[in-house]
């Protein structure tokens, strides 16, 4: 699957998209600003589609990998955002073993999405499956409830 590189885009366009992602401007404003970069048959909407996340690219660790036990779980968070005091996270750990160190994985401003779920899936993203790596690395990951991109 094709993933464009940042170097293929004008830095000003990347900056504009950064503003959009961080809530500084609306999608409409992004498209207006991107219009001048829409050349050679490209539309501003096509640029937006290229820059936004493509979650089909995210999965580096299979969801049904037998070395991993991963499930959504609720945990108490009485001072948090949820009206019922419960938050949802992805809890993942090696399928064998007793006790593990723990790591909280905190997502970007895009919520619990396929990218961050993949980061959380032990024994380790990026093929870091060295002997004992999964065990030594903390293997509980939690995140905030999913928010839909866009």
């Amino acid at each position, binding site marked *: 699957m094709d993933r464009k590189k940042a170097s293929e885009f004008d830095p000003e366009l990347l900056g504009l998209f950064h503003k959009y992602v961080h809530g500084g401007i609306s999608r409409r404003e992004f498209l207006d600003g991107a219009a001048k970069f829409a050349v050679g048959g490209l539309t501003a909407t096509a640029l937006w589609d290229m*820059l936004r996340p493509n979650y089909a690219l995210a999965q580096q660790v299979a969801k049904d990998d037998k070395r991993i036990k991963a499930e959504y779980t609720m945990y*108490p968070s009485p001072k948090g*955002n949820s009206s019922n005091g419960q*938050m949802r996270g992805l809890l993942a750990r090696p399928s064998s073993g007793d006790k593990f160190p*723990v*790591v*909280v994985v905190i997502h970007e401003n895009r919520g619990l999405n396929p990218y961050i779920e993949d980061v959380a899936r032990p024994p380790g993203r990026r093929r870091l499956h060295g002997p004992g790596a999964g065990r*030594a690395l*903390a293997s509980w990951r939690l995140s905030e409830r999913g928010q839909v991109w866009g």
Partner: protein
Amino acid sequence: MQKQLDDGKMQEDFVAAAEFLLKHPQSTGKLGAVGFCQGGGRVNRLAVRVPQLAAGVPFYGPAPAVEDVPKIKAALLLNFAETDPNINGRWPGYEAALKANSIKYEAYVYPGTNHGFHNDTTPRFNEAAAKLAWQRTIDHFNKTLKS
């Protein structure tokens, strides 16, 4: 995106996550945190707030309030993009406070990268930098969280 959520309450959600994990029956009690972008900033703030945090790895995360830095107990590994003016502009002040308080940290800037370089679902993904930063992340957790 999450503009509609209360920022302070969202931070509480991650403090609660840390407490949940610390108390979990399968936990050794050794706690780390890794986060990206806004979540990297939350790692910094978690380090300020949760003294049990032994290791923190913010990826291109906003610095915490400088006056809070003395509260940090965690050993930090900070990963920065080369082109990321909003985040990097606050690093010198943060670093000075880390040094002044003798807080253990390592910081790396990845040449040729933009904010978000670890996220493989957008064009800002930089595979070589993402791999190196993640290897350092794993090494840092292995070093600091092993029982």
